[in-house]
């Protein structure tokens, strides 16, 4: 019999000192737990309460409809369409494998691909980013996915507004496109627009053109809807909401501002059709005499709708690697030698500097020896004794070589820079290239060499260092047509808020009037302008004009063709057939013109890259645009035409008529 069961309270007293550590342990535990509870519930209480709210309140973004873009007459250029996407919210998914499997059956996409998308997004944007599994669902798919949501938390259909460009590739570089903000861009933008706009993962942002330029105004403010969800992401009904009290009111989205452009959709379509029908690479800029841009084409182009739908990486890579650069806004970014389109500006300079008068006759043989080398004209025999009128009409090189020799670079620069060459037009769009108009000082500074007299000759015919963008040429020619008015081109007419209030309006801006005395002492007389305009009129209307095949009926047009050398050839090669060279070795063709010749309303500049000639390459497009403009704005002129077809196109075989080939 063991002793411990004997009733012996005295023996049990043996343990009395052993209780002391227990009291210590209890006291320490009480203090420790109280301190920890105090820390969590009092010190961190507010913060953790917020966490618990975030847990149960799911924000559903109500995407603000992006502002629309209209043409000058209020016709749609860029709009929004409703679309439905299947998305996965990975944080709410219970069983990823099963969920992707049923989802793949519902939308007809391999479950491996869905998993890949989820993993990719996780890598890029972190574990809580919403994964778009498939965009633009059909109605059937929408229904099937919506049924799935009940059993598979985390699967949802999201209504989405997609950006739509009804003109497709036409004007894509001008209007731009939208795509998701990149992870890199996100913090930068949020820093830039601190306290004004909050950008989030998955937000669309304008990536080029007007979409990029006025993104802030176009995007509006997203709204939010607050929904109570359980731990599995399932939404609770209204009655469940009441159990736990307050429901948070939705924040309505604010639509973006609409933008009205100066573009005329009709002309835009004519320009694109005419240019693409000829399979041209290059750019078209059509402006009104007050600087409003009417049409803007850059080719090859891309379809911005592809970005709205989510462009495939293959297609994107293909376009990025396209040697003819579809993303490039060639109207303001491709600057190239203006070639003979430079000659009217040379003519003005020569007349103003009294090198010649309107009646001066200059002997123009087939080539001119200057220094140690011959400078050729494109017509082997030369033009003989000609005046300024013939020199421009038939595009004599030797005539202008002589002008160049007499003037020297700095006098050329003094005048021609006033027409806007060598400096940006300051149109609203980003990344405009200012081209280059050289001067002796420029060469010294940038090349580190003296200006060579021989360079006066090449500059005189628009080759050498001189380059210009199509838009700059349009502005310069518009200044000739309007007899001195250098304007600032612009695209955005009005910014209109969602209630229809015009909150920003842009008006034509005159940069300088060349008939008035300029700071550098230049003041061009109306007679000079009229002389040059008459010469340019003959280019189109004259019997031997280089663009005589591209007349517009009932309207007189004045302009000048040009060819821009892509690379130098030796004397013999100059006469080899351009079209027999590889495409990227062929010359660029220019045609810049205004109409009506006397008192122009519209000026069009076309750069047809690798088209060999300005006349056949570029002039037909100018003709089509001017004709469309005139028919629309002056229908009375065409009222007597019985058969419209006869004036549409006059087929001409390129290269047959030597006078159709302009000078180098």
């Amino acid at each position, binding site marked *: 019999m063991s002793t*411990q069961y004997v009733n012996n309270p005295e023996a049990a007293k043996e*343990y009395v000192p052993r209780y002391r550590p227990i009291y210590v342990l209890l006291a320490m535990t009480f203090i420790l737990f109280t301190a920890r509870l105090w820390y969590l519930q*009092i010190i961190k209480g507010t913060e953790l309460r917020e966490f618990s709210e975030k847990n149960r309140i799911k924000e559903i973004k109500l995407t603000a409809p992006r502002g629309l873009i209209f043409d000058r007459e209020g016709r749609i250029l860029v709009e929004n369409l409703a679309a439905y996407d299947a998305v996965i919210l990975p944080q709410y998914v219970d069983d990823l494998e099963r969920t992707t499997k049923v989802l793949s059956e519902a939308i007809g996409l391999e479950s491996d691909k869905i998993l890949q998308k989820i993993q990719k997004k996780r890598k890029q944007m972190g574990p809580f980013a919403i994964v778009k599994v498939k965009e633009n669902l059909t109605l059937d798919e929408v229904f099937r996915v919506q049924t799935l949501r009940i059993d598979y938390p985390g699967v949802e259909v999201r209504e989405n507004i997609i950006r739509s460009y009804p003109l497709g590739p036409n004007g894509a570089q001008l209007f731009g496109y939208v795509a998701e903000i990149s992870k890199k861009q996100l913090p930068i933008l949020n820093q830039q627009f601190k306290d004004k706009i909050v950008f989030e993962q998955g937000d669309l942002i304008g990536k080029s053109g007007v979409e990029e330029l006025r993104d802030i105004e176009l995007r509006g403010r997203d709204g939010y809807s607050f929904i109570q969800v359980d731990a599995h992401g399932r939404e609770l009904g209204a009655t469940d909401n009441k159990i736990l009290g307050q429901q948070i009111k939705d924040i309505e989205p604010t639509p973006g501002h609409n933008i009205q452009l100066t573009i005329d959709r009709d002309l835009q379509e004519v320009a694109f059709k005419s240019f693409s029908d000829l399979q041209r690479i290059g750019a078209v800029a059509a402006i009104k005499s007050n600087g409003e841009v009417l049409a803007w084409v850059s080719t090859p182009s891309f379809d911005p709708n592809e970005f709205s739908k989510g462009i495939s990486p293959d297609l994107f890579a293909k376009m990025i690697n396209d040697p003819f650069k579809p993303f490039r806004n060639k109207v303001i970014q491709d600057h190239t030698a203006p070639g003979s389109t430079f000659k009217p500006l040379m003519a003005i300079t020569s007349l103003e500097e009294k090198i010649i008068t309107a009646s001066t006759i200059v002997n123009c043989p087939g080539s001119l020896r200057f220094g140690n080398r011959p400078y050729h004209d494109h017509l082997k025999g030369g033009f003989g004794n000609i005046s300024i009128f013939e020199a421009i009409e038939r595009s004599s090189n030797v005539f202008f070589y002589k002008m160049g020799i007499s003037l020297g670079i700095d006098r050329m620069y003094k005048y021609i820079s006033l027409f806007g060459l060598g400096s940006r037009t300051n149109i609203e769009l980003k990344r405009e290239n200012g081209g280059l108009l050289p001067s002796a000082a420029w060469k010294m500074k940038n090349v580190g060499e003296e200006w060579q007299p021989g360079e006066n000759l090449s500059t005189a015919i628009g080759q050498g260092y001189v380059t210009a963008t199509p838009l700059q040429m349009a502005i310069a020619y518009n200044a000739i047509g309007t007899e001195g008015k250098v304007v600032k081109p612009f695209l955005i007419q009005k910014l209109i808020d969602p209630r229809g209030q015009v909150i920003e309006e842009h008006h034509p801006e005159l940069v300088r009037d060349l008939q008035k005395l300029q700071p550098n002492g230049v003041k061009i007389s109306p007679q000079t302008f009229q002389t040059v305009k008459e010469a340019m009129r003959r280019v189109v209307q004259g019997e031997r004009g280089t663009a005589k095949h591209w007349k517009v009926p009932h309207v007189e047009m004045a302009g000048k063709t040009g060819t821009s050398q892509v690379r130098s050839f030796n004397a013999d090669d100059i006469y080899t057939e351009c079209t027999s060279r590889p495409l990227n070795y062929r010359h660029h063709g220019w045609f810049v013109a205004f109409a009506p010749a006397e008192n122009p309303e519209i000026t069009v500049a076309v750069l047809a890259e690798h088209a060999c000639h300005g006349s056949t390459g570029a002039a037909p497009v100018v003709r089509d645009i001017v004709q469309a403009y005139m028919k629309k704005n002056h229908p009375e002129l065409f009222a007597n035409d019985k058969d419209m077809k006869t004036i549409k196109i006059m087929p001409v075989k390129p290269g047959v008529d030597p006078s159709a080939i302009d000078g180098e």
Partner: protein
Amino acid sequence: MEFGLRVEERNFFSKLDWGLILIILGLNAFGLLNLYSATHGISSEEMGGLFYQQIVWLIVGWGLFFILTIIDYQFIGRLAYVIYILNLGALLGVTFFGKVAYGAQRWIDLGFFRYQPSETMKMAMIVLFAHILSEKNSMGPGMGFRDMIWPLILLLIPFGLVVEQPDLGTAMMLIAIGGSMILFVKVRKGIIVSALVAVAIAAPLAWNFGLRDYQKNRVLTFMSPTADPRGTGYNSIQSKIAVGSGKFWGKGFRKGTQAQLEFLPERHTDFIYSVLSEEWGLFGSLCTLTFFMVLFLVGIKIANQANDKFAALMTVGVLSYVFWHMFINMGMVIGLLPIVGIPLPLLSYGGTSMLTTMCGLGLVSSVAYRRYLF
């Protein structure tokens, strides 16, 4: 006295320790209120029944409490080895007939009741240790190695079986209870020091070779729970959010969003204290903690007045059982300890836990009942 009680009956009521009973009833009441909230969230159809189930366990528990109060604990003490061996048999049975749940074999399905032998093993260990250790002398320098070798063998056999299930939490609990009792009786300082050194050496070995992956994960996520918010650290984070978001007064009865919207896992069992802290705030959390502290103080008083060493030691054993469960459960809920599947006595849902706890407290009550008997 015509309407009064007979002498023996009056004796029965006056001999009960009403302090002990009231404090248990207090915890029961708070527990039921809280369990009602925890089981009547958005999935109330699935869980609503558990509340009524718990009431049944509670009634059965109180029945056992009074039966054990009446039975002389000395009788139970004499059966210590028998109880221990029967329990060991049940534990072996689990290995062959047990239900697999959460990746571990823990239960024997008795039809109306899932019996968890590892839980009753804790009680059997308490009785057996009280039986053996009360013979030891706690005056002098304390127990030597030879005094402890037999108790340790008896402790390590069930420990090994529970680890095999694998249920590391319960196994560690056996060690905690047995260890507490041994230390209470007194151990020589040299042995304590060498035991600590042995643990320091064994811990890394156990980490590399002994622990299963999910067990390692639990420890790892405890160290850095934000590393994987939807993975193993999820429970720990959600529990801390629940507790903290209660602030001082709590969100109110059945208004705890973390609990009601099921962000809290296992909210009716292991995380019942998070529900309580969320809905009743610091006020409710501290009240509960204080209730437990009062229970321990009442228990120590009972042990102090016990009739014999066995009774005192058994009471200390039961108190250590309640204490370590409370300590580990609350500790993990408030983010001081890793997540282990240890219920909170008297508050968590669960038949085995409730019945075992009530049995233990019944033994304590039995000790109190007999303190005036000499």
